[in-house]
C-alpha cells in the first residue's frame, strides 16, 4: 500500500497525538465547589477507612471540602509525599511518621504546632515522638505496644498461672517448658521483629534519664541497644528459642503459636482476631523487665501523626487547624477507638480488648514503650540494617558487639 507524503505525515502526527492524549488526561482538574475552601489531605489510610472522618468533618464544617488522596504505607506513601513536596504540589495536611519526620522537619515542610489547642492533650510520649529542638511538628493521638502472647494450658502444665515479671523469671519459665518437652518461645526474625531488645533499651534509657529527642545527636543506636541485645540473646544462647527463626515470617510464627507448637510468641493486638478464631485459651502479657531494678517497658510506638504544610496561610491554614481540632474531638476519638486504635489523648480511654488491657494501662497510656527507629536519623537505614544484622546475630554468625559496631558504622556512613 502506497501513501503520499502528506498522508504519511498525517498518520505520524496522529500517532504522536495518540500518545500525548493519555498524558494530557493525567492533568489534574480543579473541580472544587465554588465558595468552599478546599483542603488537600494525603493519608496512608485508604478511602474506606478515612471516609467516615471526612464526611463527619465536612458535615460539621460545610464551608470546607476535603480533597482526599491516598498512598499505602510506608515506602509508597513517603515517595508520593516526597514527589508532591518537591514538585510544588504539597498536600495541605499529611501524615508524618518516624521514617520521614527528620527530612520533613530539616527541609522546613512542616508547621510548628507547639502550644496549639489541638496538641495540648496529647500524651508526652506522642509529643516527644514528633518533637525536634523543643518544637512539636505533628499530632499523634494513639500508640501501640507489643507484648507476649502465651498458651495458658501449656503454662499451667509447668505450674504457671501468672506471667513472669522479669527476664530471668521468663528464662526460668522457658527452661521448665523445655524440660517438659514444650517449645518455649518464637519470634519472627525474618520480618525483623526482634521486639524484646527495644523494650529493654527503653527501660535502660528511662532509668538513665536520657532525653530521647537527643539520641539523634550521637546517632549510635548499636551502642545504646547493646545491653538490651545481650540480655535478649540469652533466650537463643540457652536454647529456648529456635535459631531457625531467622527464616520465620510473622505469619509462620503466628501459625506455630495458634497450632500449639510453641508456648509463647511476641506480637501485638493485631493478631488477636486470629487467636480468638483459633479457639484456644490464651493470654497476653507485658514484656518482662530486663531485671528487677528496671521498669517494664514494651516495644511500641506512637502512631503516625498529622502535619500541616508549613507554607499554608489564611483561610487554608484555618481550615487545616480545624481539621486537626476535629481529630481530637470526642466523636473522632471514639471512632478511632472503635476501629481498634489505642488512644493516648488525656481524658479519653479506649475500650480495648480484654486481653490488651494490661499492656494498654501499663505501657501504652503511661508511655513506657520504645522503638529503635523512632529517635535516630535515617530510620529507614537503621530498620533495614537492623533486620539483616539481627538475623546474623541470631544465626550465631556475629557477636552482639559486632552487631553494635556494624549498625553504628552503617549509620555513620549514611549521615
Amino acid at each position, binding site marked *: 500500500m502506497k501513501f503520499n507524503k502528506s498522508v504519511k505525515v498525517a498518520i505520524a*502526527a496522529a500517532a504522536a497525538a495518540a500518545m500525548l492524549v493519555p498524558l494530557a488526561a493525567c492533568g489534574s482538574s480543579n473541580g472544587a465547589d465554588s465558595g468552599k475552601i478546599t483542603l488537600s489531605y494525603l493519608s496512608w489510610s485508604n478511602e474506606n477507612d478515612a471516609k467516615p472522618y471526612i464526611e463527619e468533618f465536612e458535615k460539621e464544617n460545610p464551608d470546607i471540602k476535603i480533597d482526599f488522596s491516598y498512598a499505602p504505607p510506608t515506602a509508597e506513601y513517603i515517595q508520593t509525599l516526597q514527589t508532591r513536596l518537591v514538585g510544588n504540589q504539597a498536600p495541605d495536611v499529611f501524615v508524618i511518621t518516624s521514617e520521614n519526620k527528620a527530612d520533613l522537619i530539616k527541609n522546613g515542610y512542616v508547621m510548628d504546632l507547639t502550644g496549639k489547642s489541638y496538641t495540648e492533650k496529647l500524651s508526652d510520649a506522642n509529643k516527644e515522638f514528633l518533637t525536634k529542638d523543643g518544637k512539636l511538628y505533628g499530632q499523634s493521638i494513639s500508640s501501640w505496644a507489643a507484648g507476649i502472647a502465651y498458651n495458658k494450658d501449656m503454662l499451667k502444665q509447668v505450674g504457671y498461672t501468672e506471667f513472669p515479671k522479669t527476664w530471668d523469671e521468663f528464662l526460668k519459665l522457658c527452661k521448665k517448658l523445655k524440660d517438659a518437652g514444650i517449645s518455649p518461645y518464637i519470634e519472627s526474625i525474618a520480618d525483623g521483629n526482634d521486639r524484646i531488645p527495644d523494650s529493654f533499651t527503653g527501660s535502660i534509657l528511662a532509668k538513665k534519664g536520657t532525653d530521647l529527642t537527643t539520641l539523634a545527636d550521637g546517632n549510635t543506636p548499636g551502642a545504646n541497644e547493646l545491653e538490651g541485645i545481650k540480655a535478649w540473646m540469652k533466650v537463643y544462647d540457652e536454647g529456648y528459642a529456635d535459631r*531457625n527463626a531467622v527464616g520465620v515470617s510473622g505469619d509462620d510464627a503466628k501459625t506455630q503459636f495458634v497450632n500449639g507448637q510453641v508456648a509463647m510468641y511476641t506480637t501485638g493486638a493485631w493478631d488477636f482476631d486470629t487467636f480468638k478464631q483459633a479457639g484456644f485459651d490464651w493470654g497476653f502479657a507485658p514484656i518482662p523487665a530486663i531485671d528487677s531494678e528496671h521498669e517494664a517497658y514494651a516495644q511500641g510506638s506512637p502512631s503516625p501523626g498529622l502535619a500541616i504544610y508549613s507554607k499554608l496561610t489564611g483561610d487554608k491554614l484555618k481550615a487545616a487547624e480545624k481539621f486537626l481540632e476535629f481529630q481530637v474531638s470526642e466523636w473522632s476519638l471514639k471512632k478511632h477507638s472503635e476501629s481498634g486504635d489505642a488512644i493516648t489523648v488525656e481524658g479519653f480511654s479506649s475500650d480495648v480488648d480484654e486481653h490488651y488491657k494490661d499492656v494498654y494501662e501499663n505501657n501504652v497510656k503511661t508511655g513506657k514503650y520504645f522503638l529503635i527507629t523512632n529517635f535516630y536519623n535515617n530510620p529507614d537505614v537503621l530498620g*533495614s540494617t537492623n533486620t539483616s544484622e539481627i538475623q546474623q546475630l541470631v544465626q550465631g554468625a556475629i557477636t552482639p558487639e559486632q552487631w553494635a559496631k556494624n549498625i553504628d558504622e552503617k549509620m555513620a556512613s549514611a549521615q
Partner: protein
Amino acid sequence: MSATMQGSAVGDLPPLDESLYRRRRRARGLREDVTSFWFLLPILAVFVVLFLVPLVQTAYFSFTDFNGYSMDMNWVGLDNYRKVFTDPSTLQGLGFTILYAIVVMVGVTVLAIPLAVILNRKFVGRDFVRSVFFFFSVPSLAIMGMVWKYIFSPMKTGVVNSVLAAFGLGPVPWLSNNSLAKFCVIFIAIWAQIGWHATLYLAFLQAIPADLYEQATVDGANRWQQFAHITLPQLMPGIVTSTFLLMSGGLKVYDLPFTMTKGGPGYSTYTVTQSIIQQGIGQSQYGIGSALAVLFFIATGIVVFLQMGISNLISRRFE
C-alpha cells in the same frame, strides 16, 4: 546486484539521463528517510523522555547528595561511588546477583533444551504436558516467592519438612541457612523458567528440516550424534536469544528473592536491584542509589555484551 548487471543497466542510459536518474533516486531516498523519521518520532520521543533523560539525571544525581526532599543538592564528587564500593551489604548483593544470573542461565539452558527435545517427540498427552510446563512460567516470580516461602519454611511444619518428617528425617533449615536460602531462591527461579524457555526452543526445533534427520539416520547416526551435530547447531540462534534473556533478567532480579527471603538471612540473598530500590527510594539516599544504578548499568552492559560475543563465537563454530 553484480557490477556487470549494474554496468549494463546504467550503460543503456544516455549520460544526461544517468545523472538525472541518480539525482531522482537520491531525492526519493531522502524523502523516504524524512518520512521514516516522522514515523519514528513518537517512539523516539518516548525513548528520550522515559529512558535517556532519566539516565542522564541518574548519572547527575550520582555525583550529588540529593535526598528527594530538596532540590538544593550539593556536588559530592565520587563520594557516593566510594560508599558503594565500601558497603559490605552492596558487595554481598553484587556477589549473589552474579551467582544467581549465571547459575540460573546455565541451569535453565541445560534443562530446557532436553525438555524441548522430549516435548518435540510424539507421545500421548503431549499437548497437555507442554501446557503444564508452560504454566509454571505464567504466575509472576513474586507470587512464586510467596508460595514457596511456606513450602520451604525452616520449621517442622514447613511443607517440605513435613514430607521429610514422614520419612523419619529431621527438619532442614531451608530459609534460615545462608547457603540453603541461596539454593532455594535459585532452584525456584530455574523451576519457574524452564517451561517458558523450553517453549522457545520448541519453536526453533520445529523449524529444523526433517530431511536432515532422515539423511542422518540413513548415514547411521545415532540419537546423540543427531542431537550434537544437527539439533544443537540448529538451536544456536535460540540459545543466544534464551541466554541473553536469562542473563539480562537475572542481573536485574528483585521480585523472587525479595518475596521469599527479603534478601536474608543477613545479606545472603540480597540483590543489587534491591539495594538500589532500598537505598535510593526506601532510604531517600538518591545519590547512592543513583551511583549504584549507574555502576550496575555499566556492569550489565559489559556482561551482556560479553555474553553476546561468546554466544556469537560459539554460533560461528557451529556454522
